[in-house]
């Protein structure tokens, strides 16, 4: 049979309906029946359990105010939003610069020889009174076709575009190219029977990449 000390060791567990072995429960209850003090203790422990359960039930609906969730969601969004700081901008700029450098390098590697034309020279070369059409230029400038130097050939620049403006050549450039007869014809320059030959020519290229004027150098 259980004594008072042993009973006090299991009284709280008994009052909380914890899973105890059958022998322990029977021993404790038998002791409580025969011991007034321990019986009172068990009654108080059981009352405490019911009162704590009542308090727990009363508190079950207690939750944090809605503003806490709102604050936390804002903090979460801030934690995960992209960093708009200077380092981010620098990274973007570095990326753009890298792409630009790659394009320039590619053009240098695959591009043909070119000569930059000073704007004043270009303006001089395209003065009024010179040939106005590619056909006229091609037929009127045999010396250039015979392999004139850059300086001599400068007189033979012929506008290819109706919008060609010699005074706005500051950003344009001259590119020396080798063109087939068909390519020359596509630019509006008649080549007659020499369609299979490669013709060396200088082209004035606008910023948007369109040819503005042509100078035949030789073939």
């Amino acid at each position, binding site marked *: 049979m259980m004594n008072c000390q042993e009973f006090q060791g299991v009284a709280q567990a008994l009052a909380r309906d914890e899973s105890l072995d059958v022998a322990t429960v029977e021993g404790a209850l038998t002791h409580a029946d025969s011991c007034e003090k321990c019986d009172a203790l068990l009654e108080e422990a*059981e009352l405490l359990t019911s009162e*704590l359960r*009542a308090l727990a039930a*009363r508190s079950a609906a207690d939750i944090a105010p809605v503003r806490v*969730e709102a604050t936390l*969601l804002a903090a979460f969004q801030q934690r995960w939003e992209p960093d708009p700081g200077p380092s981010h901008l620098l990274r973007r700029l570095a990326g753009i610069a890298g792409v630009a450098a790659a394009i320039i390098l590619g053009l240098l590697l695959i591009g043909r020889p070119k000569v930059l034309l000073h704007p004043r020279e270009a303006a001089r070369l395209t003065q009024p009174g010179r040939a106005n059409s590619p056909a006229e230029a091609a037929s009127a400038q045999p010396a250039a076709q015979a392999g004139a130097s850059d300086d001599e050939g400068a007189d033979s620049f012929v506008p290819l575009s109706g919008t060609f403006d010699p005074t706005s050549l500051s950003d344009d450039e001259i590119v020396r190219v080798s063109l087939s007869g068909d390519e020359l014809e596509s630019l509006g320059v008649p080549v007659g029977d020499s369609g299979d030959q490669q013709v060396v020519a200088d082209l004035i290229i606008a910023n948007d990449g369109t040819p503005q004027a042509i100078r035949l150098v030789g073939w």
Partner: protein
Amino acid sequence: MVRPITETDSDLLRRMCAGDEEAFRTIYRRCQGPVYRFVLHMSGSPAIAEDVTQDVFLTLIRDAGRFDPSRGTLPAYLLGIGRNLLLRRLEKERVFVAFPEGSAPDGSEPKNNGEHAHLVVAALDPVRNETIGRVRQAVLSLPENYREVVVLCDLQEMSYQEAAAVLRCALGTVRSRLHRGRGLLIEKLREFRKPGENAVVGKAKSARNR
């Protein structure tokens, strides 16, 4: 995207760590109640409970990677954070017992400013409310180490094992502290109890299957 209703805390945490706001919201809604109530029972202050609950989840947002599933569940982990934050705050402010605002001298329910979800139904059963208020005060008057096990095991209905994970102590420690804490509660409530009120005990006794 359709997600299973019973998504585990670990799955949610993984998504949260990838920036999924919905996952964080679900974790918060699952776990904030126990954290808030634990702090409220421990401090008696809705304001402290609110602050600590917020800080617990801010900690999770900042450093979710510190959660180790092998050491316990996510709710236990969050309760552990809440406990540490609370003890630090109590240590600092020395706020232990009694509801600082709206606490009636007879131990009845603390008033609420309406922003908290705390239910106030005092008018319905004043005797019962008075009893609950006394129990609440008695719990608050316990030493912290006993109070926390009573709150976790009796008010939050956690197992010894879960409580041990929160408190980072041995299971036997939880058991012995609960035994001692309940003994202290009985003593305190005995003082509060009016003469003849023990007749209520008879109800518990008659309910016992003997």
